[in-house]
């Protein structure tokens, strides 16, 4: 016999579902039965197809009625809701305003931080094949990772590995900026050597010229638009000649293409590209090519469509290990990995990376702050809305009595919160547009206020409004829609007690968040102060650094030095290669014989300096002597290096470089911070030699005049080379760029977060005070003093703020401890910082609450009780 399930033919399941949705009142069950019955009848008579056809027809004709019932009436109700919520907002101007301003400020912060985060995460996404481009990184057993790869790598990969579409090599010329000269104009610009495939792999937008062979063949140069305009006065410069000057021979280069200026969110930043074949054709640079030993290039590969990092990387490793197993003099000795192009900006931290690198941790941190601030703003909304529930209770009671469902009231209240949030969103948009120019400079990145362009803020704003509207609206809506009409309408004076516990919790959490931010700000700024004031071991003030970037200046550099030394504005000049902020070279393999006769090998960070170096930077000698003119093969090491070697009598001992050259130790310098305070002071050495920089200690005072003097001396001797200099101070600050920036942004957003929290507290207080005016009046009549009343009114809030503070302490402690771990030299977190922050938050809260409560306590009771 047939089973229960199969007892009759069924209409299409989906059709039945739709129909049951359309007939969603209580009768639908029998309605569906009716349809089913007729369906089976038709099916029996005319077959299943006709029956289904009929069924679908039934659905279609139900739709218009359904639409009318659903949308027409809901539109009518919507209008009502809209009017009511506007009326409510207008009736309670104070708290509506607080709510609106709080939300708008929170959303502004959020959008600002978001635009920063989006900028940071947008790096290199603009390349057409960004997802298929990888940078090759190399790893050596005792040197760690590096992005420098040897020339042979590209050749071998191209020949042996399948799945690689294109390979391009980039070489960053030593010494940074170079001079570009054309039409009598000359400027310092920085750029790269790149091979012909570069413009095919990377889709930097081209203005003029062709992609294909712009960089093929020697002596070709591609300029960016602004450089072309600077040099030639127009971008019609294809086919013209640019003279490129570095310390070697000047080169004439043919302009073959013009690029649009490089977007700010490219990890490679350059003003020009020179064809790599130029370098290849130069005998002087032969040593870099066709070798595994010399790794000076950045190599980028573009994988073929459908190939992944996982499939190509093992193939490369396999190839390299096969090659390095060969008994060949020229064989690879490092291993290679791939790094996705879009990870380069945020996820690498190589020293001295040519790439513009950011820090994922800071991006995450800012995102967290953004959400924190948004939540603080949401909390205001929740607090004010639940506090005002007493006022709304009547309206909701009446609505329910008239026959509103809970879901309808819920929708109404959620809708209200969306209206408020949308208004706040509009306000926030205006504020963002207003603040953006200032924010650009603080964040240190070019953010544009682009509403409607491809990466506009508008969709994000919409998402934020939705998110905030939901977050802020859902609790009050659930709470209020659940009110019992009998109770709300009968009680004479609704208390607004409902949700008091939650409100308290929310105030606590607001202050917790604010105090965490305050503590963080204080610690960040103290650490930065510490960094700046810490005895670095050298004096970084009043030092100007002038660099010779090309041959002519470099030839004249000692002349300039002597002339500068004669000027009264100048105290001392050192001709040097290294700076205390920047001891650039890393040499390994120094051999030393210890006091006990054992040999050890050591590594130094080192650079070439002259005999004035220690004087100019005011670096102290612990033992021995300074360099003297005419010294040969002498070396000065620092205390850290001495400690590693362990000599008792270091002066006169020998250090052997690369197993051949003995250097005599003539002096020991005090440890000074030659890198940032992020890392410990390691072993360092100074060699006697001539560099291409002049470090000029100037007499403090009239800076403009002094700089004028420097410029005149420079220009007189170099025949109009552009004068380029920097202050050591600025170079020092650059070491802490991220931290300084973080500190600034932190400060701004902390102030805002505290303000928003206070705004909420103010709103809550004024509401509470208004509710208790009669109570206050009666208390006064019964003899309460003003101070007692103020105490009474403030007690609750103070308690909440204090609890919030106490909860914030451990949180802030752990977070900031983690941050400080980035610094090898750091301040200790002391209790006073917490006390100070807490006191500050308490003071601000009291100020906010106090003003309102004192006013309420001073009111003459006859005023408040008159109408009773």
């Amino acid at each position: 016999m047939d089973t229960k399930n199969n007892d009759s033919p069924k209409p299409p399941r989906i059709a039945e579902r739709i129909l049951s949705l359309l007939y969603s009142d209580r009768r639908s069950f029998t309605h569906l039965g009716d349809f089913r019955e007729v369906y089976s009848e038709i099916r029996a008579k005319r077959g299943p197809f006709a029956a289904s056809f009929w069924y679908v027809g039934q659905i279609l004709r139900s739709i218009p009625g359904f639409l009318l019932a659903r949308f027409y009436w809901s539109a009518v109700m919507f209008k009502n809701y809209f009017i009511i919520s506007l009326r409510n907002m207008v009736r309670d101007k104070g708290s509506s305003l607080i709510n609106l301003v709080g939300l708008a400020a929170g959303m502004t912060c959020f959008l600002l931080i978001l635009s920063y985060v989006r900028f940071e995460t947008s790096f290199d996404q603009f390349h057409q094949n960004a997802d298929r481009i990888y940078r090759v990184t190399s790893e050596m057993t005792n040197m760690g990772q590096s992005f420098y790869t040897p020339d042979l790598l590209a050749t071998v990969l191209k020949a042996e590995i399948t799945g690689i579409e294109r390979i391009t090599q980039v070489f960053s010329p030593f010494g940074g900026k170079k001079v570009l000269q054309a039409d009598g104009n000359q400027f310092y610009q920085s750029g790269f050597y790149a091979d012909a495939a570069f413009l095919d792999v990377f889709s930097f937008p081209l203005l003029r010229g062709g992609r294909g062979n712009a960089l093929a063949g020697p002596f070709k140069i591609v300029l960016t638009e602004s450089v072309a305009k600077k040099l030639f006065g127009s971008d019609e410069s294809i086919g013209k000649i640019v003279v490129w000057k570095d310390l070697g021979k000047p080169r004439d280069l043919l302009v073959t293409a013009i690029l649009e200026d490089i977007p700010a969110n490219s990890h490679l930043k350059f003003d020009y590209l020179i064809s790599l074949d130029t370098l290849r054709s130069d005998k002087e640079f032969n040593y870099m090519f066709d070798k595994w030993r010399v790794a000076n290039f950045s190599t980028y590969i573009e994988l073929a469509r459908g190939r992944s990092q996982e499939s190509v990387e093992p193939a490369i490793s396999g190839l390299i290990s096969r090659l390095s197993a060969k008994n060949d003099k020229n064989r690879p000795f490092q291993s290679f990995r791939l790094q996705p192009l879009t990870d380069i900006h945020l996820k690498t931290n190589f020293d001295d990376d040519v790439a513009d690198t950011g820090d994922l941790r800071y991006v995450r941190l800012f995102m967290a702050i953004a959400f924190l601030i948004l939540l603080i703003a949401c909390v205001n909304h929740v607090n004010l809305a639940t506090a005002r529930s007493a006022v709304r209770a009547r309206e909701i009671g009446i609505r329910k009595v008239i026959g509103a469902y809970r879901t309808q009231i819920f929708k109404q209240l959620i809708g209200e919160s969306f209206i408020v949030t949308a208004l706040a969103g509009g306000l926030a948009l205006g504020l963002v547009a207003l603040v953006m120019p200032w924010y650009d400079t603080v964040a240190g990145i070019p953010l544009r206020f682009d509403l409607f362009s491809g990466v506009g803020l508008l969709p994000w704003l919409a998402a934020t409004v939705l998110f905030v509207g939901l977050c802020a609206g859902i609790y009050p809506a659930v709470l209020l829609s659940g009110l019992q009409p009998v109770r709300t309408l009968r009680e004479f004076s609704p208390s607004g007690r409902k949700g008091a516990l939650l409100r308290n919790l929310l105030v606590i959490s607001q202050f917790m968040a604010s105090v965490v931010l305050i503590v963080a700000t204080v610690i960040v700024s103290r650490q930065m102060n510490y960094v700046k004031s810490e005895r670095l071991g050298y004096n970084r003030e009043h030092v100007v650094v002038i660099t010779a970037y090309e041959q002519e200046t470099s030839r004249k550099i000692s002349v300039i030095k002597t002339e500068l030394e004669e000027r009264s504005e100048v105290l001392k000049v050192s001709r040097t290669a290294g700076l205390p902020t920047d001891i650039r070279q890393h040499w390994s393999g120094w051999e030393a014989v210890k006091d006990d006769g054992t040999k050890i090998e050591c590594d130094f960070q080192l650079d070439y300096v002259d005999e004035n170096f220690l004087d100019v930077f005011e670096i102290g000698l612990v033992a021995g002597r300074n360099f003297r003119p005419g010294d040969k093969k002498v070396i000065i090491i620092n205390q850290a290096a001495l400690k590693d070697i362990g000599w008792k009598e270091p002066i006169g001992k020998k250090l052997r470089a690369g197993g051949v050259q003995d250097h005599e130790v003539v002096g020991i310098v005090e440890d000074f911070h030659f890198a940032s305070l992020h890392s410990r002071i390691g072993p360092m050495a100074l060699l006697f030699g001539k560099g291409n920089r002049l470090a000029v200690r100037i007499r403090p005072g009239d800076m403009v005049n002094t700089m004028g003097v420097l410029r005149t001396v420079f220009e007189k001797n170099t025949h109009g080379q552009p004068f380029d200099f920097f202050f050591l101070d600025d170079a020092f600050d650059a070491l802490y760029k991220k931290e300084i920036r973080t500190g600034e942004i932190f400060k701004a957003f902390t102030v805002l977060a505290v303000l928003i929290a206070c705004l909420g507290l103010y709103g809550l207080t004024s509401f509470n005070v208004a509710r208790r005016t009669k109570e206050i009046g009666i208390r006064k009549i019964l003899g309460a003093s003003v101070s007692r009343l103020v105490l009474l009114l403030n007690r609750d809030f103070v308690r909440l703020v204090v609890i919030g503070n106490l909860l914030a302490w451990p949180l802030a402690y752990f977070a900031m401890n983690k941050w400080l771990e980035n610094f090898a030299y750091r301040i200790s977190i002391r209790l006073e910082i917490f006390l100070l922050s807490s006191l500050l938050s308490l003071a601000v809260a009291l100020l906010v609450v106090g003003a309102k409560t004192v006013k309420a306590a001073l009111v003459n009771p006859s005023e408040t009780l008159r109408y009773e």
Partner: protein
Amino acid sequence: MRFLSRPEELVLLAVWKLKEKAYCVPIRDFLNKITGKTWSFGSVYDPLNRLEKKGLLESYLCDPTRERGGRSKRIYQLTSAGRRKLTEIKAFQQAVWNAVPDFSPEKQEA
């Protein structure tokens, strides 16, 4: 008296005619038959709901059958008010027809 709409009248009549078998499907079949048109379900539900609201009909759920896929039927019944209404309507119709001169169309259907 308050008039009913024509569909309401017809539905009321159908319920009377079908007695205890008066649920939506047979009602619709009946209406299709006597009017010669296809009535949609909606145009049957609406008068049924309205008549029930007016207190002329009452309904109860009845056991499901196989061809309804296990769903029960809602059987409608006249209330006493409904029965009175039907009588009123009939009397009224007759009164109206009696009040005019005799009317017989030339051609009747065979």
